């Protein structure tokens, strides 16, 4: 999504003796023409509403959609003769057999044995030992307990399947991604090209990958792995490439002047100096992979996503809850382990790392214990197959009961809030956007794009809107756009309040930041579960889930932006006797404008990427179209069209906010840089 904004020509200080720069024309605030456009729009809407809205009933399809379905069918029919499909199918076969091989090693019966090669005890022991080896005994305990919880709660196989998919994908991502990271870290030209591709990958809401991936790789584990690779690749390439690029030029120059070769520079200077950042990239990639691996349940991918999805489909919160919790457990485990491993590596590299001999003894004892456990798990059936407990089921029932009680008791409160947002924000906006004739909305949106983003934004907007119109889902697109905008407005309200608060109060920051980090670690799927329980399947549920998903990132961006305002400026302001309110509104927020725009941009895209997931819980519109397209083969074309429409909306919103950011003179390199390394989960800690 990030078209690299052209490197900002830093305003050069005027050389002594030169002409003073021409005074800038004071620009009229962009909100005034914007309000004018909206006013005109409302007037036109009043007289024309309900005509030419291009509304399409829920399950109706157009010829275009059927043609897309035909193309899909033709491609599927030609699977055996089409060379591209043959190639992708052979890759799919390879992935599948690799997955099945690992599965036979640790989870499923490996014929002729009735149980896997290594039973559950061996698996837990190996995992614990890995935790001990790369991190510390604390992590080993965390890993051990996590693995045990997978089995005790009754999702042993699903959990391990998810881990295998995640692990395979991360391994492949590293093999593909590190060379790319080096390339974009060392060659500005390659950086530009690769960044465009990464942008595209990252603008696309997760679900849109799934459609073409299914077409070329079939459903099941291979589609899960391939889509996970696509999703998890950008963070590693971007962050690692960024780390390599940011290595101090003085150091490069100094070591170059010692006469080093390209490889010596890479191996001895650039990679070691970027190591910390590279590991952050790896951490982000792992979490992204986990989140996609669970979502891959939509394409029949194996793992914990399946029970969650099944629970959501029948609105059974309790059934979705337990696997949802396990996904969170797994995310926390992976996050802590990679973080602790990198900290440990850092310490060892600095000659620390505690008592070396003691550690060797512990590792040796651990290795022996692990081998014994593996042996036992191959010998005794009870140590090979995880025993069945009923805790998971009882937990699910308990959750259902609690949820019923909560809904009965607090239903009124949530209802009031829901009605307020629905009646005062959602309905009016949706009416304006979707009930205007399509050409009126078209012109109005373009005019707003021009006001906020200038010519560049206008051109992209025209292209995207025309595309949306072409795919015959205009009315649905407008409804989705409404929900996205409303959710983003609410996200930004949260971001401003909490972001400014965090920036001004260190203790509050320290308290809330771990929560935000946790929020960003959890795969989006999981958010739906509690929200669905509270608000039932409606548009509003989808919006709340999107807000919960998008808010942490936006809050952090605003907090960091406000915090980055130079203390000298704030001090200077205070010395003039400003009030706190004046300080926030006249100094901190204006100076953090770049971050605010970036937070809006990210908020929009995060929210939009929840569209399809929202479709599961009553969001309707494009999200429903995609879900419906997945479930009915004759509606494939409509689902594909909806997917493309979501992408077009995303590109349009991205371009407008990005262009709006570029029109600002005052944003420093900070926000721009953030644009360029856009992280799907969270900025490096």
């Amino acid at each position, binding site marked *: 999504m990030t078209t690299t904004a052209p490197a900002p020509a830093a305003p050069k200080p005027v*050389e002594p003796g*030169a002409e003073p720069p021409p005074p800038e024309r004071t620009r009229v605030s962009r909100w005034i023409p914007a309000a004018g456009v909206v006013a005109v729009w409302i007037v036109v809407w009043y007289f024309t509403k309900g005509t030419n809205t291009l509304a399409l009933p829920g399950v109706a399809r157009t010829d275009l959609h059927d043609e897309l379905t035909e193309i899909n069918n033709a491609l599927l029919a030609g699977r055996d003769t089409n060379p591209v499909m043959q190639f992708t199918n052979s890759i799919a076969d390879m992935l599948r057999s690799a997955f099945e091989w690992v599965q036979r090693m640790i989870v499923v019966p490996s014929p002729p044995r009735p149980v896997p090669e290594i039973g559950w005890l061996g698996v837990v022991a190996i995992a614990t030992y890995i935790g001990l080896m790369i991190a510390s005994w604390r992590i080993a305990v965390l890993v051990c307990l996590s693995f045990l919880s997978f089995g005790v709660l009754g999702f042993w196989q699903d959990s391990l399947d998810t881990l295998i998919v995640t692990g395979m994908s991360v391994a492949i991502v590293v093999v593909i991604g590190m060379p790319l990271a080096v390339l974009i870290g060392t060659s500005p030209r390659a950086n530009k090209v690769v960044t465009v591709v990464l942008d595209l990958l990252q603008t696309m809401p997760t679900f849109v990958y799934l459609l073409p991936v299914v077409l070329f790789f079939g459903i099941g584990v291979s589609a899960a792995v391939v889509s996970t690779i696509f999703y998890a690749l950008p963070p590693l390439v971007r962050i690692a490439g960024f780390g390599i690029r940011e290595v*101090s030029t*003085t*150091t*490069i*120059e*100094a*070591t*170059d*002047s*010692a*006469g*080093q*070769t390209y490889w*010596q520079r890479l191996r*001895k*200077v650039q990679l*070691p*100096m970027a*190591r910390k950042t590279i590991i952050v990239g790896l951490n982000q990639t792992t979490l992204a992979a986990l989140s996609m691996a669970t979502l891959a349940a939509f394409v029949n991918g194996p793992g914990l996503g399946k029970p969650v999805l099944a629970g959501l489909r029948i609105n059974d919160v309790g059934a979705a809850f337990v696997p949802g919790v396990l996904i969170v457990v797994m995310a926390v485990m992976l996050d802590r382990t990679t973080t602790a491993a990198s900290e440990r590596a850092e310490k060892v*590299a*600095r*000659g620390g790392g505690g008592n070396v001999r003691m550690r060797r003894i512990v590792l040796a004892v651990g290795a022996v214990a692990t081998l014994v456990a593996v042996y036992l798990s191959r010998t005794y059936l009870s140590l090979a197959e995880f025993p069945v407990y009923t805790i998971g089921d009882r937990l699910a029932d308990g959750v259902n009961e609690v949820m019923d009680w909560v809904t009965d008791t607090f239903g009124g409160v949530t209802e009031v809030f829901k009605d307020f947002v629905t009646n005062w924000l959602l309905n009016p906006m949706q009416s304006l956007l979707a009930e205007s004739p399509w050409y009126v909305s078209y012109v109005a949106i373009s005019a707003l794009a021009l006001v906020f983003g200038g010519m560049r934004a206008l051109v992209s907007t025209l292209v995207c809107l025309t595309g949306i119109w072409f795919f015959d889902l205009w009315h649905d697109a407008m409804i989705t756009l409404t929900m996205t905008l409303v959710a983003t407005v609410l996200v930004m309200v949260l971001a401003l309040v909490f972001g400014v608060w965090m920036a001004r109060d260190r203790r509050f920051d320290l308290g809330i930041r771990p929560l935000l980090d946790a929020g960003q670690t959890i795969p989006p799927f999981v958010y739906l579960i509690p929200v669905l329980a509270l608000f039932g399947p409606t548009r509003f549920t989808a919006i709340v889930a999107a807000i919960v998903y998008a808010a942490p990132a936006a809050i952090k961006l605003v907090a960091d932006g406000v915090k980055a305002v130079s203390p000298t400026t704030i001090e200077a302001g205070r010395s003039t006797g400003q009030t706190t309110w004046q300080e926030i509104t006249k100094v901190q927020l204006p100076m953090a404008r770049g971050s605010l725009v970036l937070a809006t941009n990210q908020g929009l895209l995060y929210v939009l990427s929840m569209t399809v997931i929202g479709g599961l819980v009553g969001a309707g519109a494009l999200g429903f179209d995609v879900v419906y397209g997945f479930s009915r083969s004759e509606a494939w074309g409509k689902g594909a069209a909806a997917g493309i429409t979501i992408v077009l909306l995303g590109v349009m919103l991205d371009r407008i906010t990005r262009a709006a950011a570029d029109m600002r003179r005052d944003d420093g390199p900070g926000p721009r840089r953030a644009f360029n390394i856009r992280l799907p989960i969270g900025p490096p800690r």
Partner: protein
Amino acid sequence: MTAALSVDSLWKIFGPRSDKIIGTPDAELSRAELKTKTGNVVGVRDVSFDVAPGEVFVVMGLSGSGKSTLVRLLTRLIEPTSGTVTLNGMDITSASESQLRDVRRTQVSMVFQHFGLLPHRQVIDNVAYGLEVRGVSKKERRAKASEIVDLVGLTGYEMSYPDQLSGGMQQRVGLARALAGDPEMLLFDEPFSALDPLIRRDMQNEVIRLHRELGKTMVFITHDLAEALKLGDRIMILRDGAIVQIGTPDEVVAQPADDYVKDFVSEVPKAHVLTLKWVMRDPRPGESMDGPTLPVSTIVRHAARAAIASDAPIRVLDGDRLVGVVDEEDIMRVVVAEEAV
């Protein structure tokens, strides 16, 4: 004796199609005019000079004068636009990648303003880096490096990491790294600008000491005139990428080439820099010629006591030859004049 370093009409122009400008009338434009006309920026404009073996050659100018660019052109850390650089008879500007690498490994080392140390390596391995890229065995390079660490006064800090050292000590590491490869020439790019004044003075003395002990040829970039006068055998003053003046410290102070240089040196305590050469005069008729004698290279300040003690003017000798006389009044004029400023 052949020059250790010889630079001939060296140009560096930054920007698109910069190679098309030299030789055209555009090359005569001022820096600002060229920038507006073509968008290119002149870094170094037609610079030529020679450095003798063992000499300390100081390049001085304000920021933006092109001095840092110039020093990078010498080993092609930045590619020159045109002109030649000859190092010990070898043409650097036409050298191949591997020849150039060889030059950097064995003949020229550089010390940087912001040190450029590797934060993930201990002092000893930072110092040994140049030897490492050459392929010297670990044992050998560590032995050599610890020798150099001792030489620059960092004994005991071998196993520290750069971020555990003060700025002055970090620059000693930078210096040690440059010396470890036993190069014939050292390049210094404003090495002490980032240090505070007392540390800076120590480091300057360190360089003087090392120069006395090792006798390396040095090219030293600075924006600090006092530093230039203190260290330099000769000083080259740059402005907007072009040479304004090349001369010994006393020449630059006594005969500034233009108002720019004059402005620069106006604050210098002249009595500390000028030699008798610049204040002596021909004997007046009837003047007593039996005063004490001093060589012509004596610094004015050091001649003051003798001049006050003697009634007759001091006779100034160049070798055995009488070249002029100087009396108390001549010397006082220099000392008092600058107090009046």
